[in-house]
């Protein structure tokens, strides 16, 4: 799989990251170098008996029972902006 055309800006957008022009240029080159090294994995012989569905990787769930959690106050103490016991954010829904 060719990686020469990593669209760093597009991938950064997926990750909700703004990049400066300089960052985008530097990262493009660095990531291509890293991916060149990663490409070596494509040549590794994979035996047929490798399990791809290893169930031990599935998260163990706790019982769905109410329990102690953080108090609203302790959560709001770390909120960048809050009012009326709620975290305040810029408008989410655009005006009609």
């Amino acid at each position, binding site marked *: 799989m060719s990686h020469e055309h990593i669209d760093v800006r597009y991938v950064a957008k997926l990750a909700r990251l703004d990049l400066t022009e300089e960052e985008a240029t530097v990262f493009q080159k660095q990531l291509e170098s890293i991916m060149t090294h990663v490409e070596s*994995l494509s040549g590794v012989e994979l035996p047929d008996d490798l399990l791809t569905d290893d169930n031990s990787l599935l998260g163990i769930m706790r019982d769905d029972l109410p329990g102690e959690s953080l108090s609203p106050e302790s959560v709001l103490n770390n909120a960048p902006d809050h009012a009326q016991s709620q975290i305040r954010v810029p408008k989410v829904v655009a005006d009609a």
Partner: protein
Amino acid sequence: MSLTSLRQQFLDGTTTPTKVLEELSKTIASNDPRTKAYISYDLENALQLAANADLSKPLGGLPIAIKDNINTFGQPCSCGSKFLVNSYISPYDATVIEKLKAAGAIPFGRMNMDEFAMGSATENSAIQLTRNPHDPERIAGGSSGGSAAAVADGTAIAALGSDTGGSIRQPASHCGVVGLKPTYGRVSRYGLVAFASSLDQIGPLTRCVDDAALLLQAIAGHDPRDSKSLEAPVPNYSAEIDNGVKGLKLGIPAEYFGDGIHPGVRDNVEKCIQHLERQGATIVPVSLPHTSHAVATYYVIAPAEASSNLSRFDGIRYGNRAPNPADIIDVYHQSRELGFGPEVKRRIILGTYVLSSGYYDAYYTRAQKVRQLITRDFKHSFQSVDAIISPVAPTPARKIGSCSDDPLQDYLSDIFTIAANLSGIPAISVPCGTTSFDGADALPVGIQILAPHLGEQMLLRIAKSAEQAGSSFGI
């Protein structure tokens, strides 16, 4: 001064937790302006705890420095990042902190680290640079550089760090202290700010192997709040520690002793191996054939998991929010742009890329399969040996700022430590000597011991013997 000796002195009445903290704070005032291992510390709170310490507890009255990615109630938790610095105060204790407190210990100090644990030099901290106490022009290693440097510098008796690809063991090696990464799942990750959830483990950095056993004893154990926490009972880690290595088989993997290792590192590690042989161990050549793929495997999986874990840093619920966002999406973009440093951004982009549509199977799934081959290599070797010995890092600590512009060169230096995280096996770095390197006379060198899954007792026993070959603790 060690945890073990101080504990005895407390019981004898020769000193008190208050006096120890007072002395420690004087050493911090004298040494830390140069080393900069501490981001902050709350002496007043610690002295209150010291005054009321229960000396009957296993770690009663003993101060333990904490890497700044482990939540400790009421204390800042910056993860070495602008995103959280001067902003986030932990609203809860991580499980390891609860356990330390239950054992009577005093969490004291927030230790510098590479931002979000991404790095091998603590040069990626957005807050300050930590210098190696053995040579202030050199890195302390990373990402638990602050923890390792403080223990080496005499400004901490012992510390907790976290290890995802070597971040306890490598700084331990560079600073001449002991650093242990437990079996994956042995120590709860609840309250550790996640970097790569299938790789992260919290572990001790200490002045001696006995202390590592003592600290591991306090923090190990099942925790239902960590879904991968192991239910296996916690043995007495000190019980077999003085049993020596007579009759043990120690594997030397050819792939870990190839080209690219500094001669002084090789020399010290080989001398230590010879010491272990004289003590009665049998040295057995082994092979870990997929070693050369470890770095590539890690640098797909770890960034992938990091890209998911760090998506919680969105500027909404905690952390430093961008000041003038245009709209809600802009909150995310700007807060993350301002809050994250270049290495974090690089790894998030790399991780997002390898998980993205069209690339997931080629990169991420494939890396997980190669990971299984790396794990099999160890399992196969452990059928014929009790433990495996290797260097920790190809060179001693390099000069600050000497890393090339190609981050891949730094990533490749993680070659010896990464495989233990990929396989989940426990590993320890023990000081085994010093060497001259790149203009410095006597830089510490660590030897790494790797044991099978849940083989911490074996690890500590061999480590204690290796330590007796001659360590370079302290300045």
